[in-house]
């Protein structure tokens, strides 16, 4: 199934807008801001998990089994991120004891974000990082690794994902 460059272009924008709207949709129906944010976070993460699983299966269809956990994480950093955002993760750090820190210095979905008060942007952006966390967790779990993924947003558009293997 060949995709022309133009087909891809349309899909990208539609996908970005769809995700933006999904996040606000997930926040409806709750009374307090904190409840909203937690609920939206949890739901988006579940969604991301399911999507990540499917994507990883498609992406690794013709590849041999991965040798160890580091290979799996490198796959996420390179091929998986390339598939999703047309770029790779910019920085990977590990403590060799099962904790990996992935840094994306210009995360695509954060690149246009800006809040009314510039300082609040990282906080508001956190809900939007739930979906990519789920994506990573889903991809890892479909490759046979159980993990937990947490995101940190120091300043948009930079985003850091911390993977802990269980």
């Amino acid at each position: 199934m060949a995709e022309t460059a133009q087909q891809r272009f349309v899909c990208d924008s539609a996908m970005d807008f769809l995700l933006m709207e999904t996040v606000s949709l997930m926040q409806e129906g709750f009374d307090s801001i904190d409840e909203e944010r937690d609920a939206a976070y949890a739901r988006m993460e579940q969604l991301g998990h399911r999507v990540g699983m499917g994507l990883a299966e498609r992406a690794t269809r013709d590849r041999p089994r991965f040798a160890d956990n580091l290979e799996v994480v490198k796959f996420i950093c390179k091929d998986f991120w390339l598939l999703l955002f047309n770029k790779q993760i910019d920085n990977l750090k590990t403590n060799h004891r099962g904790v990996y820190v992935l840094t994306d210095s210009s995360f695509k979905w954060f690149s246009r974000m800006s809040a009314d008060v510039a300082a609040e942007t990282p906080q508001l952006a956190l809900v939007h990082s739930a979906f990519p966390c789920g994506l990573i967790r889903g991809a890892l779990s479909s490759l046979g690794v159980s993990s937990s993924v947490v995101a940190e947003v120091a300043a948009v558009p930079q985003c850091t994902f911390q993977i802990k293997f269980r």
Partner: protein
Amino acid sequence: MTVHSIHIFNKKCECIYFTEWNSAKADASKKEKLLEPAAEEKDVDGDPETAKLVYGVVFSLRNMASKLSNQGFSSYKTGTYKLHYFESPAGPKLVLITDPNAPNMADTLQSIYANVYVEHVVKNALVKPNTPIRNQLFRTTLDKYVRNLPNFE
């Protein structure tokens, strides 16, 4: 050529953004405040009455022009200022007020819409559509863009 101010109206006829650079009125004290548009919080809802008047003028002129000819209304000139109007197909209307000697700004308005508004408002996940625009990135980008126009003073 100086750019005096810009209004952005949404589909519901509300003014969602307003900034002044050099006020057309010769009001000295007002001029000092307006040299720093990015810092002034009240710019956004600056003057609701003026905004309504501007919208009324633009609305009437547009209807009149469409009844008189096939082309739409794009700008008018008076002795003291020139008003440029751009309506995007999707809804928001941009109104730019400059000095009378300004050239045709239709392209400028179009690129303000495409490069500043769409990028920083439409694609911004943290902004609800049709609400007043207050985010910093939009404001600074617009400010930089207008100041970089040729002959801006």
